[in-house]
């Protein structure tokens, strides 16, 4: 048999975007599951606010207070990161390379800032992981989100270096990065409301 020459690679249709969207949806379901269990256990608790008509902070362990300022700053920082990523996409479409690279690096800095704010929340709360249901749920959910933030940081830096390396026409990567940032910001908005606001 005579071998035919290998066919040229056909251009995949927004492969990275679809892959990122699928994994982002899986991440959203992961946090959805965790928060559902958080709400279920909070409602089942004898200290639950809706059962006892007591203020919500009684669900928290004694002496523990959630610092509001750093958690609010986390939300604002993530929202700002989304704005930066959107700006990076617009700049890339306008072939403004300096602005795109700058915005990508700034989004990475936003991720570091959010991680720093989360560390501050942990430090100020000074709550042991051992000792009760709330502690387990709080640290697991926020810890898992911290892992997602580290993923966002790595994704932003990789995209920025790819861009600086000359792959300036690859807009699909930027759109994929934006999708990931939008989803984790949406996830954090729910975490912020459930864990930091309504507790």
């Amino acid at each position, binding site marked *: *048999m*005579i*071998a*035919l*020459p*290998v*066919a*040229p*690679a*056909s251009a*995949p*249709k*927004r*492969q990275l975007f*679809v*892959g990122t969207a*699928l*994994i982002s*949806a*899986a*991440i959203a*379901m*992961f*946090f*959805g*599951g*965790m928060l*559902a*269990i958080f709400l279920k*256990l909070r409602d089942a608790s004898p200290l639950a606010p809706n059962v006892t008509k007591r203020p919500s902070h009684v669900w928290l362990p004694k002496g523990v207070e959630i610092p509001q300022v750093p958690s609010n700053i986390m939300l604002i920082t993530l929202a700002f990161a989304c704005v930066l990523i959107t700006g990076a996409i617009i700049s890339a479409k306008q072939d403004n390379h300096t602005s795109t690279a700058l915005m990508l690096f700034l989004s990475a800095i936003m991720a570091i800032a959010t991680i720093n704010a989360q560390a501050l929340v942990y430090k100020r709360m000074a709550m042991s*992981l*051992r*000792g*009760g*249901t709330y*502690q*387990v*749920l709080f*640290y*697991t959910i926020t810890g*898992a989100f911290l892992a997602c933030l580290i993923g966002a940081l790595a994704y932003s830096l990789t995209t920025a270096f790819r861009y600086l390396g000359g792959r300036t026409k690859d807009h699909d990567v930027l759109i994929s990065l934006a999708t990931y940032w939008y989803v984790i910001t949406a996830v954090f908005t729910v975490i912020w409301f459930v864990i930091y606001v309504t507790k």
Partner: protein
Amino acid sequence: MTTIDTRTEALASTEPSVAARSLSDIAAWITTTDHKRIGRMFVGVSLLLTLGVGVIGGLIGLERINPNGYVLDSGAFEQLFSLLRVGLAFFVVLPLTIGLAMAIVPLQVGARSIAFPRAALLGFWSWLFGSGLIIFSLAGNGGPGGGKPHLVDLYLGGVVLAIAGLVIAASTIAATVLTTRAPGLTLKRVPLFSYSALVGCVAIALTLPVLAAATVLVLVDHLYERSTFGGNAGVLQWTGWGLSAPAMLVYSLPLLGAIPDSISTLARRHLLQRPILRIGVGLAGVSAAAAVTQTALTLPARHHSFKTWENFLGAMVRYIKDTTPWLLFGALPILGVLIVVGLTGKTMAAPKLNVKVLLSAATQFNLIGGALLMAGFALHAVGDIAPIKLTGTVYEEGVSILVGYSVVLLALGALTFWGPKLWGRRIDDKKALPFVLLGAAGAVLASIPMIILGFMKQPGYTAGGFDKQSATGVLNALSMAGHALMLATVGLFVLVALMSFTKGELAGDDPYDGQTFEWMTSSPPPVENFAVAPTAASSHPLTDLKPDGLNAPARTQTAKPAQTGALR
């Protein structure tokens, strides 16, 4: 004097030794990014693990028929039972469906490779390592209810790792169908197997993370606190839903489309009512995935009094309110599977039934596997009818076994049908047909007695608490025999397949006069799948290339087998 040694012995000595070649081949398999190899690794390991699940099913049956307490250590039963549940979901159904989809779907959609091939390989190794941890921890008295806390932690970590691998692998398959289709192959024209793989893999990628979330919370609690989630005893309470129906039905979805695809190709007929078939797959997928989100989905036993006109409307509203969730999440998936199996049967029978095709091993595996899968969907819905009171009995176990083993039969059918494409050689029908009967008998015997015992209120999750001397003993013995038959089926089929795919009759590139892209390339295909990029103008693109349509000699591509590497 020359510095070049021209002696032939010296030339021979530069050849790599047999050991070096073997090591190189093994390394090539371990690090492969060829979707066909990764898919075959998934299927191969899964079939071996299926043998283990059969042994465990048999041992559980033995414990249940033994009148004098426990045959094994009394504490081992919970571990065995956990291994059966975890095994059916994570070692049998999920890797078989995902592995077959990974091997076949890129070929069907005319792609040169799977989307994110390195991620697909990562998915396989993550699943394999996680499965290894699960087996190791359960064997060492870990797992749900286990006596060694650090092995319970290891079990939970293994489950999370296996889930991560399966979600990544499922995502690569879904991304392949969505992004790497050949020009002209719209989603409406995608072969049914690829379509069901898309629906099933998206459903898996959305449901398994919820199970992972519960498992991570149980793991952290078990590591540090052991109060919130009930310690060892609470593991199955919080994560058990992911190991039984309706989650099991979701895991089986990718293989649903293999039934119409293989039977229509064998019958050399175009599928009838393709849009309705797609609706059927979608119905089964969406409603089964939605059913997983329902924590207490039962058809209530509330009495509806329609006797007087005053309470007629109120009773009617309550009746609709009670039955609608059950109809949506329990009954609708059955309709979906019924559409797929029914229209496949109609395609095969119209205008005239081809008995030779009907009696072929691939058709029989698919028809019987499909019928049993449909029975699994239906029996799960029956189990949700509250007045029958099947909760807590062995009924649920029976449904899981039925779904698990029907997927095994479908997978054996898929291997018989697509094996010639993947290995270039075919399994003789006469050799494969006995396994259809053996496997069908095994699947029915292993599960149906459990379902009957559920109606007889035999308690689940235990080997005691019921009369072992009466009819229950006979039914438990039949179930044990069913597991043994399934074990024999898979074991012997694997042996026959190994012999056939290495020394069997050469299949040719298009042995069934196929209609879809996978039959266009050589058997086995080269690493890049296609020598020439295919294009589609209809849902049966290969038929369009043949001068006389169906029933015509194939005009296929050929490629050097050498391109595919060694250790096929």
